[in-house]
């Protein structure tokens, strides 16, 4: 643990803070392809996908913060930027108060041990040429080079038992397991270095219903037993309602609403949150009345002016088309909506 002394331990402060995060991906090819003649002059024309446009978030210790939204809303980009898999275009990310964006790989190493990630597709996230025990030993060896072999092996057995995979299956390869089992192994790999913070990007979306329940239970057990904090990315609201302590609703790279889970599901405030909640196919026939959205999500290449949701919003007005709403506190909830602010929701 000698490498970790540098990391501060203020228990009350948020574990992770994201401020003014922006990420854009260039769509343009090389410099020569970007140059165009327009009106007799040479101009450089660059196009970007604006994946995240100014996101502020805090992840508190011990909570399961769920980020929900539809495809293209930037939720996975948030997860990947937090983990340092991609670097932000603007903004800062602080872990226990220390900035971790833009750190050199070596300086990031102690944080990598504390932060682990679980990916959506367990068929792609396990190396097909490594046995399960090799897969699980790798991160331990990497972060604890001083551990002797026996200790590494004991740790592997411990995490395999924790996720319900028999330790004598360690000699097998990933393809010999079912999707649910592979996701358990991916969770075991994340747990192998005793992290305190896990980013899970759609960890159960690729699994069948009965297997989803198994994996969610496993993640909740692990949270209780190991005092974990989760940043959980998903599009499945039923899972959020069950699993999350707080929910962040994202649309087109911006945060619409941040609320405690129970409050969000009882009284959704943002018009997009309302539409999203009413679109869940429920088992009972006497459901909530559907808020129908017209149109589709605009492309993140040319962002609409004003509120990004105004094109589909049933209560948008002139101000929404002009002015970008900022997150404002309403009780326990943060909402970015002019209509809510003006009381015409």
């Amino acid at each position, binding site marked *: 643990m000698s490498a970790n002394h540098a990391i501060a331990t203020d228990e009350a402060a948020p574990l992770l803070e994201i401020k003014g995060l922006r990420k854009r991906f260039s769509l343009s090819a090389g410099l020569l392809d970007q140059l165009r003649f327009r009106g007799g002059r040479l101009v450089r024309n660059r196009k970007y996908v604006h994946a995240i446009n100014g996101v502020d978030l805090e992840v508190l210790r011990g909570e399961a913060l769920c980020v929900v939204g*539809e*495809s293209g809303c930037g939720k996975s980009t948030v997860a990947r930027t937090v983990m340092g898999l991609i670097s932000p275009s603007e903004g800062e990310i602080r872990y226990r108060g220390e900035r971790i964006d833009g750190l050199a790989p070596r300086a990031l190493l102690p944080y990598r041990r504390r932060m682990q990630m679980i990916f959506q597709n367990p068929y792609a996230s396990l190396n097909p040429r490594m046995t399960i025990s090799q897969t699980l030993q790798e991160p331990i060896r990497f972060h604890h080079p001083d551990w002797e072999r026996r200790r590494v092996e004991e740790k592997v057995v411990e995490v395999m038992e924790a996720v319900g995979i028999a330790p004598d299956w360690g000699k097998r390869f990933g393809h010999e397991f*079912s999707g*649910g*089992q592979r996701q358990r192994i991916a969770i075991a790999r994340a747990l192998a270095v005793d992290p305190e913070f896990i980013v899970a990007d759609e960890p159960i979306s690729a699994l*069948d*219903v*009965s*297997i*989803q*329940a*198994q994996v*969610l*239970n496993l993640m*909740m*057990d692990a949270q209780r037993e190991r005092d974990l904090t989760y940043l959980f990315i998903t*599009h499945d*609201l*039923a*899972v959020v*309602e*069950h*699993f999350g302590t707080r929910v962040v609703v994202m649309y087109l790279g911006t945060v619409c609403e941040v609320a405690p*889970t*129970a409050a969000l599901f009882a009284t959704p405030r943002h018009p997009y949150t309302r*539409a*999203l909640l*009413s*679109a*869940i*196919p*429920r*088992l*009972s*026939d006497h*459901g909530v009345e*559907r808020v*129908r*959205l017209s*149109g*589709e*999500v605009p492309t993140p290449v040319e962002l609409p002016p004003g509120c990004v949701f105004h094109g589909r919003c049933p209560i948008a007005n002139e101000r929404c088309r002009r002015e970008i709403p900022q997150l404002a506190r309403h009780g326990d909830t943060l909402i970015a909506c002019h209509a809510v602010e003006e009381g015409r929701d």
Partner: protein
Amino acid sequence: MPLLEVEGLDVRFALRQGEVQALRDVSFSLERGERLGIVGESGAGKSVAAFALLNLISRPGFIHAGSIRFDNEELTRYSERQWRRTRGNRISMIFQDPMMTLNPVLTIGAQMIECLRAHRRISTSEARKLSLARLRQVQIPSPEQRLDQYPHELSGGMRQRIVIAIALLLDPDLIVADEPTTALDVTIQAEIMALLLELCERHNVGLILITHDLGVVSQVTQRMLVMYAGRVIESGPTREIINDPQHPYTQGLINALPQMTPPGQRLNQIRGSMPSLAHIPSGCAFHPRCDFAQLPDGSPRPGCRAQVPPFVDSGNCRVACHMVRQMQQLDLEEATP
């Protein structure tokens, strides 16, 4: 007389390691204009059932036994010629991925006109007019423009609307939809499902909806089948099955949904996973995962392990489970002293 009657359908795949039975003794029927859901997890055989209905099972797969009667005609004896006249015309299909259905190198209009002209003797301009009308019906904005666009220029939701428009093009009697909204976002899914439901009702089209999503089934269909390891294990009116499932697997599936447990508590999981078709357990295929099939000492109940449970009637539903049958016998004995 029902529109569609499937009896004892048995589909097999001849693989190198031996024959694999993908469907076992599947029987169901569908009235004209009725909507039937087929539910199950991956590997349950629901997509094989859909493909078999349309004679789309290709080698090494084949229909080993069973009959499919559609409008009083035996489809399993159809020639390829007869199939060509039927598919896309009287029975049409919607698949999960609209990009697999649409031809990427033809414009939307060309594909719709081709489909119409393959089945009807009409001019290109008439066909274009009809295609436009259908695109309006599926609420596609600026339909004239869409006819000259290629599939890649449209969003996923828009493509699936076009697939629905094509499926309805020739006024079919039956649409088979295999996970039509699984690849779409929730708000788009809700729109597409509402649209499909409305169009089926308005045109009195029968719908077979294959999905893993119990919420979607309960909102769209009138009756449903639950499949497990190639067999139908429970069938009946959708509302009754959702509200009061009889088979332990159906119960497990519904109870495993997050909304069935108070927030933060452990979910009711079903242990184990769906068996592969090459290694289906003996007797009731669900017995290794079933609580009822376990004796107090942990060994499997001999009846469940040895014998495939026959269907018993339970209210308006039919269930293939030894437990349900035993309970009914107990009730009977109590009723006749």
